[in-house]
């Protein structure tokens, strides 16, 4: 660039007005320098500098629709909040159990070979002696059972299976119909056996 200058004294011509103004390059540099300082000062005063702390809200992601939330939020807390419509009793559950559950848990839920579900002996941790909340039975069957086709049972089927297993464990009567209202009211035998240990 310097080599392209016609003379040793660099200059710039500005055709801005009626008069031709000649400004030395040194003057331009000075003006630029002062300008920068002013800009910097202005930025500091007006808060236009780069933030040191990240914002609370980046604006990434998109708002979830209520439909999305309703279809995905399947977890049931002890209050029963979110339990679906539907109902089932022990007799209905027994039929489903026979075909979808007995192969792993045994004909009566006491035999295994996998998790034993029924019984109150101290040796086996069953729903009857070790599960503190009935809502957990519903939640777990609905999300994870049967093992070869989880998530395929209807709310009626899950209410029925829950009723069957609670009835087999002598926690509810064989005639009890379970639904969103009655399920959270069940008091489980193991309820008071659990001590939270989260503050070690």
């Amino acid at each position, binding site marked *: 660039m310097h080599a392209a200058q016609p003379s040793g004294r660099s200059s710039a011509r500005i055709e801005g007005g009626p008069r031709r103004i000649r400004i030395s390059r040194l003057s331009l540099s000075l003006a630029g320098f002062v300008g920068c300082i002013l800009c910097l000062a202005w930025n500091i005063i007006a808060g236009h500098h780069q933030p040191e702390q*990240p914002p*609370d*809200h*980046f604006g*990434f*992601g*998109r*708002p*979830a629709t209520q439909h*999305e*939330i309703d279809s*995905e*939020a*399947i*977890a*049931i*807390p*002890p209050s029963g909040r979110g339990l679906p419509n539907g109902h089932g009793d022990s007799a209905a559950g027994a039929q489903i159990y026979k075909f979808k559950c007995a*192969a*792993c848990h045994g004909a009566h839920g006491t035999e295994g*070979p*996998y*998790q034993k579900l029924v019984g109150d002996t101290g040796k086996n*941790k069953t*729903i009857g002696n*070790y*599960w*503190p*909340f009935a*809502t*957990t039975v519903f*939640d*777990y069957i609905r*999300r*994870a059972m049967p*093992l*070869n086709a*989880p*998530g395929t049972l209807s709310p009626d089927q899950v209410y029925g299976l829950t009723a069957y297993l609670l009835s087999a464990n002598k926690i509810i009567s064989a005639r009890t119909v379970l639904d969103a209202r009655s399920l959270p009211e069940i008091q489980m035998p*193991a309820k008071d*056996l*659990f*001590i*939270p*240990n*989260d503050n*070690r």
Partner: protein
Amino acid sequence: MTTDKKFSRRTLLASAAATATLTVLGKVAGQSLKTPNPPGPTHTPGPTHTPGPTHTLDPTHTPGPPPSALGTRSRFESLKLIPSDTSSRTPLQSLYGIITPSDLHFQRHHGGVPKIDPEKYQLLIHGMVERPTVFTLKDLKRFPALSRICFLECAGNFRTGKTELTPQEICGLTSQAEWTGVPLSTLFREVGVDPKATWFLAEGGDAAVLTRSIPIRKAWDDAMIAYGQNGEALRPEQGYPARLLLPGWEGNMNVKWIRRIEVSDGPFQTREETSKYTYSLKNGKYSQFNFLIDARSIITAPCYPDTIEKGWVEIRGLAWSGRGQITRVDISTDAGRSWQPAHLNGPVLEKAHTRFTCLWNWDGEETEILSRATDDTGYTQPTLKEIAATRGPDLGYHMNPITAWHIQKDGRVFFKPEKWK
């Protein structure tokens, strides 16, 4: 649903085993372990690898293969996890340093490994928040990223019952990686978590749709949504494309393939935090919400099935604590009568496997060697008897006992299974 549920399942019965309780102490005595020997031609790290076949050409006279698209392990090395129906275990005794190679990270699945398309992956955060939000993987990666090294240990990680056990078999359900992701606190600020919220539910996108309730304080402390492991994307077995990471807390809570977080004002009492991952106490009650992994250590060399020689032996091992940093490891070479501090090889990181070493001049006499870890909260690793004194009859989760190796006069090393009753 973001999960492709078409992953190949085993037969009904074989799969059913995947939900069986983690094999814990009570079961081990009567159960034979499938793989009694560790992998590798020799398993003690050191310059004693078996030489290659004698017909190998002299590599200084024959050009080797050109650069490749993917590096490989030497064919002389044969590192392997030990898989069972429910988990696979890291070969602790075969590794150097503190990082577990990603393909050797332990695995514990409750519904198999799902195949999730990263383009279709979504994380929904809702509940007690101002702005229920769906994040794609790309969204998660736009946030300021964080990397940290920490261990991850399954809460059911102690086997005993026979002398022929390697560290991999005794406690191979612990591994360590450098994890990269977005702090959960960043996401919680993004969605505007209600100050009255006290817990959140984390849900996986696997066939178990596994759920755990987690106190919200952990989100504000050091929880993160991780998408990177040791410099690359998570392995599918570790939650690809994104998982929850709760440094220092029991593995089961670090929900893999995380698809949903529901912010709440109480725990959901999920199956995994009631009928599992709880243990009996002396007073007949059951301890629940046992989050912290307490300080632990194990000597990984010498160990079964090594044979040592008289003279100098470098005792090597790993120590870690979910509470914080390891501050000291003590070694006994006389069956626990006297102890001396081991050297902590750096880096000594918070909630991280820490390498320790201790030089020992073995006189050729029969003895036992042990290690005992202490962390920066002052907690010291207990003996099996000390743990059993607080527990009910069925020891199970959160077992971190001091572990002894029996050195025979002939130099052979065996695990010392201890009675606790």
